[in-house]
């Protein structure tokens, strides 16, 4: 996080929730998992995040329920602290300062007052040797406690938390690393070490990956890299130990777990199949296939009813007794690389990028929640290492969000790459995209860029795709449907090339009247109406890297960056270079709502950001050292509501927000201090001290009900006050649902008329009434300024009159009198009819 006066760079959501094994609470209602620098508490039934335990300043590496108190949880972090939380209220209870980065934490009920952590072996930090250390709690009432009483238990252990485990309620601890299994018995204070040969006869790898100890029996299960599971017994002797082998997985077993009673063993791996083995009847096993992606961790709730599997695509699944997936908690999928650019769906304003293999994910930035995954490839995903899969490499949206174009690619080792261009239409009914056209092999080579015609009002949609085969193609949706039985489908309208050069980028002008395509160092400008080449622009000697038209008032400018570190701005009216400056821009993008453009310049170590307008020589804002490494993906996302920031340096953030992905796939954004404060206040408001299934719906309802209770309590004493005439009718009016009632205008006119009736009664009263009318008018006028919906019959409803009747003002008295006099006969008539 870097300070820039007012504007700050903030980490924005999407942290991994699958890095460590999740923990299910004793009552199976909550799921705790480490997520970046926080611990998140999810509800297992509603998938909603109930609490966000903040406090650590570095990556959280382990979460563990306190063995002696099932409402408290330990978390350890690389910042060298272990913290104790009350997860039902989200309160930090204690902080233990260890002093070394903690990589994993273990505890067992047998060892009270002690927990075990994995840290670097002190002394030699280079070799990355880890050791298992026992830490004794100092008994102290302070919030912050220094716990420096360390005693080494095992040296040279794996930093992977799955590689160590307590057996039989804490009688021994077992750990695997490489080809060795070490078991340490606490009573005997003796450790046994067992080794396997590096390779067996069939060439399988024997490396141990994970471990699970039977809770009741003397048995240790180890998972191996070749997919075998070994069950070790008799390991309290050096020589006479035995093991049995079970084999189903064809790739490494990544996680093993025994159920609490020890009747079943669960295993998972890259095949994304959860396998349930019966203990002592190993030939019998159950499968839960097609869980979506590789299983990284398995956890079982203490009562054995819920299984949790965390997956490599940042997802946690909650499975009920190995049959049915009951809930899915999905975070932002951080793939190995984002092949598509970052995009914003114009309809849902969600961030769109690569998700699961073959999918696009729609991620809501405002709620930090995955909206849905769209299956682009529509193939059964084969979970096998080294298999060439279809990947979504490019996505484009048209301006109103009615059409989406995707390109998927598969590169087999021997044959030519397979490319499919798919066009998706937005379906209003299902509120998602539906496949309209598939073009197989749209180009002979890789598609380098794709863009839709930007003009929102144009009748025909045009998509332009450029390819490394030296052509760019325009795809068009014919307006009139040619056949009645099937809707219109896209077809190729034009194929263009320029001197056999390969096109790299393409860009439509804001009104859709110009298309710029860059062919290495030449920018060609075409007219999409007639597909004529209008002009060429060039700035040798290096190829164009990015192209971008100016928006709104700057639409006559075309911006381009070259590989030689030049940022050029051409004026399209004069077809000449307006200005150019020497800066190595790695990414150039324009804000669709304003004239602003953003340029990320990568320096030696860090990236700088410049915000400028093409028409002005001085940049609006420049931020140095935004993040380390190169920024390759960024996007402007329009805000829901405009910010009113008057400071010049942060004005560019008013209309839209800039998100970018760093080298390490972290999603970052820029905020101002004021905005951050507002957001913090908002989130605080959300924290409700009720821990039962916290859904937004519940929040709404619960609050309402509470209020109602209070209201009814407070209303009880004032039943003594006499109710005015016709109140039954009023009540009926108020209790009848609004949609059954006649329209307000109808009621209002009748109400007014009923007021007029009193005029005939007597001159005195009529005067009174007139006065009241006037005063009422004044009141209404003053109200009207706040909300313009004027005539309401509700102001006279006495049933809801607040109870503070003790000192009535004169005006109130007068009104009360008037209300008493009112004739509600018209209302009863109306309701009876």
């Amino acid at each position: 996080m870097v300070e820039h006066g007012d504007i700050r760079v903030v980490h924005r959501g999407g942290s991994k929730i699958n890095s460590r094994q999740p923990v299910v609470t004793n009552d199976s209602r909550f799921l705790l998992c480490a997520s970046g620098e926080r611990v998140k508490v999810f509800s297992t039934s509603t998938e909603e995040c109930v609490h966000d335990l903040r406090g650590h300043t570095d990556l959280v590496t382990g979460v563990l329920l306190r063995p002696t108190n099932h409402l408290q949880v330990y978390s350890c972090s690389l910042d060298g602290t272990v913290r104790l939380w009350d997860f039902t209220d989200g309160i930090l209870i204690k902080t233990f300062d260890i002093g070394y980065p903690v990589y994993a934490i273990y505890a067992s009920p047998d060892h009270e007052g002690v927990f075990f952590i994995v840290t670097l072996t002190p002394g030699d930090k280079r070799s990355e040797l880890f050791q298992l250390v026992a830490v004794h709690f100092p008994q102290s009432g302070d919030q912050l406690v220094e716990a420096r009483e360390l005693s080494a238990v095992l040296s040279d252990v794996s930093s992977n938390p799955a590689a160590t485990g307590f057996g039989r309620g804490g009688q021994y601890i077992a750990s695997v690393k490489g080809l060795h299994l070490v078991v340490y018995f606490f009573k005997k204070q003796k450790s046994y070490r067992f080794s396997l040969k590096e390779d067996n006869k069939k060439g399988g790898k024997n490396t141990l990956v994970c471990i699970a100890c039977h809770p009741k029996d003397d048995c240790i299960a180890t998972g191996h890299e070749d997919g075998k599971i070994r069950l070790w017994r008799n390991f309290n002797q050096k020589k006479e130990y035995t093991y049995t082998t079970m084999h189903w997985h064809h790739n490494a077993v990544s996680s093993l777990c025994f159920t609490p009673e020890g009747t079943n063993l669960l295993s998972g791996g890259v095949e994304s199949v959860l396998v349930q083995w019966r203990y002592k009847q190993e030939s019998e096993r159950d499968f839960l296939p097609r869980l979506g992606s590789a299983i990284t961790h398995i956890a079982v709730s203490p009562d054995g009813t819920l299984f949790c599997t965390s997956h490599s695509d940042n997802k946690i699944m909650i499975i009920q007794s190995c049959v049915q997936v009951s809930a899915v908690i999905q975070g932002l999928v951080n793939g190995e690389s984002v092949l598509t650019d970052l995009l914003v769906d114009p309809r849902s304003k969600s961030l769109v990028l690569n998700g699961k293999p073959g999918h696009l994910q729609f991620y809501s930035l405002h709620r930090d929640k995955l909206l849905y995954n769209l299956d682009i490839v529509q193939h059964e995903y084969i979970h096998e290492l080294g298999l060439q899969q279809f990947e979504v490499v490019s996505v484009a949206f048209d301006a109103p969000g009615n059409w989406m174009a995707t390109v998927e690619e598969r590169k087999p080792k021997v044959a030519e790459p397979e490319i499919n261009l798919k066009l998706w239409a937005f379906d209003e009914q299902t509120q998602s995209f539906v496949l309209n056209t598939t073009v197989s092999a749209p180009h002979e080579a890789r598609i380098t860029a794709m863009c839709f015609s930007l003009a929102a009002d144009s009748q025909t949609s045009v998509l332009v795709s450029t390819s490394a085969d030296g052509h760019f193609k325009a795809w068009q949706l014919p307006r009139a449907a040619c056949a009645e039985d099937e809707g219109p489908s896209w077809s190729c309208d034009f194929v263009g090339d320029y001197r056999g050069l390969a096109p790299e980028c393409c860009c439509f002008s804001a009104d859709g009247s110009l298309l710029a395509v860059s062919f290495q160092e030449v920018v060609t400008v075409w007219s999409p109406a007639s597909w004529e080449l209008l002009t060429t622009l060039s700035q040798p000697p290096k190829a164009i890297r990015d192209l971008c038209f100016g928006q709104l008032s700057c639409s006559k400018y075309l911006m381009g960056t070259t590989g030689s570190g030049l940022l050029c701005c051409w004026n399209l009216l004069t077809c000449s270079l307006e200005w150019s400056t020497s800066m190595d821009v790695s990414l150039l993008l324009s804000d669709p709502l304003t004239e602003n453009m953003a340029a990320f310049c990568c320096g030696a170590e860090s990236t700088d950001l410049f915000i400028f307008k093409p028409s002005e020589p001085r940049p609006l804002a420049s931020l140095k050292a935004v993040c380390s490494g190169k920024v390759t993906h960024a996007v402007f996302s329009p805000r829901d509501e405009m910010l009113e920031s008057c400071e010049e340096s942060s004005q560019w953030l008013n209309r839209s927000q800039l998100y970018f992905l760093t080298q390490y796939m972290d999603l970052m954004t820029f905020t101002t201090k004021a905005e951050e404060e507002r957001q913090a206040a908002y989130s605080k408001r959300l924290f409700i001290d009720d821990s039962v299934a916290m859904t937004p719906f519940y929040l709404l309802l619960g609050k309402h009900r509470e209020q109602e209770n209070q209201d009814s309590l407070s209303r009880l004493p004032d039943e003594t006050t006499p109710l005015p005439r016709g109140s039954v009718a009023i009540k009926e009016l108020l209790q009848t649902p609004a949609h059954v009632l006649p329209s307000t205008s109808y009621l209002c006119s009748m109400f007014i008329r009923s007021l007029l009736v009193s005029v005939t009664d007597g001159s005195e009263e009529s005067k009174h009434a007139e006065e009241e009318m006037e005063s009422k008018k004044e009141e209404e006028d003053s109200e009207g300024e706040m909300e313009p919906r004027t005539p309401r019959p509700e102001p006279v409803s006495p049933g809801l009159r607040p109870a503070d009747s003790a000192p009535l003002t004169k005006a109130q008295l007068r009104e009360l009198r008037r209300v008493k006099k009112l004739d509600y006969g018209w209302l009863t008539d109306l309701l009876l009819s």
Partner: protein
Amino acid sequence: MASFKPTKLQVYPKLGEKVTQDTLYWKNYKAPVQIKEFGAITSIDFSPVAPHNFAVTAFTRIHIYGPFSQEPVTTLTRFKDTAYCARFRSDGQLLVAGCEDAVVRLFDVSGKAALRMFRGHTKAVHVSDFTSDRYQIFTASDDYTCRLWDIPNATELNSYREHTDYIRCGVTSKLNRDLFITGSYDHTLKVFDARADGSVMTMDHGQPVESLLLYPSEGLLVSAGGRYVKVWDLLKGGQPLVSMKNHHKTVTSLCLSSNGQRLLSASLDRHVKVYNTTNYKVVHNFDYAASILSVALAPNDESIVVGMTNSILSIKHRKSPEESTGVSGQQRRRPSYRVFVKGKTYAPKQDDYLVSKPVKQHLAKYDIQLKTFNVSKSLDTALATWARLRKPEIMVAVIKELDRRGTLKNALAGRDEEWLARLLNFLIGNLVDPRFAPVLTPAAEMILDVYRQVVGQSPIVDRQLLRLQELLEREIDYQQDLMEVLGMLDTLFASSLPRMKVPHPAATRANGLAQREASTSRPQLKAT
């Protein structure tokens, strides 16, 4: 736990004509009934009254057929020479016909002998018709004249000699008893009014006129001559409206469908074309065995009758509604269906607890095998005889899927002679299909790799391989030829395109590049 995603069958664009409402309508006829006549059939006319018999004029006879009989109801044989143009009166009682011997004869439809003989023409009479008042006859002849006759006393009322060549077609107005139109080999159409002494309107068709047709509203006139069919607007003084050139030989006959929405034209090129009368586009086409001289549609389009030069009369009857739908309906209904839908309409009562059954995913046979990773078996099921012959795309999709999974080689290997022969047979049939070639070519290479050792051991497989080789050599030759043609076309296009001058500002600017041709072309890609 997502469900298994079945293999995606690629949907290829359908080749050939598109199925429209029109093709469905005009294809809905039974196989034709063919009747051999004595000579070329020059005219067919339907009786305007039920049961809509039709008179067929061929050589020296006129046969009157009933709507369903294949034997003539009546035969009129009292002609000395070739008869022409038999026409029914609007009440269906009388029939008039011209003759090569210049005599016009009037018959009663039930009698044999002529009731009246109209003599006066000097040459063959090719046109004869009743006027709309039913008491007069209009005839036109090769002696360039057209005449009006009175039926009761068989006298000539009027004679017009304005054409300068044979008159071979003519129509009388159905609304006005005095109006008739003739078309002649002198390329003109003339509108005559019996109350005037001569023609009131003349239109130039440009070709010898072979046939005429008036729209029921009589505002539009259609003429056929040469390869053209032209439509004239009579209300605008004979203004040409449309000219259609869809046949490649002389158009000989015209008729209108019963609702007036479709126009049919028959030609010597053996085709009958159906036009839409709103935009005059061809919507359907019938093929016949010989050159067509006459065509007629029964009322309500119940049958199409076509007479040809090889003296064959072809009658196509419309399929009855149950016939057109009955066949597929029988196939669809199975005895278990009723059991299957039993209780589907049952509405749950208030206290009922609904137990929803999970919908079972139906998978194809090859998908069931793919789901359980039985790669060889999935290939076997895809290669089953029915699928291989009817739907090669299934086999192609399975091969593609196996290739994607990286297990194609395993699936192909280890097969016996019979299986290999079947697979090679499939390849020979589909390898050069441009839709399947990208998938099948790597598969074929793989097969050759796998079975390289066994070449020469089985005569059946060897023969297949030789055929495959032959096929590929031929295909390569085709492709080379096509590339040559493409190259030639490119040169032609390049030379015919105008050289564009790209406007760019002063050449001194640093960014202005010398502009050369940017070649452009517009191929039509097929998108699925």
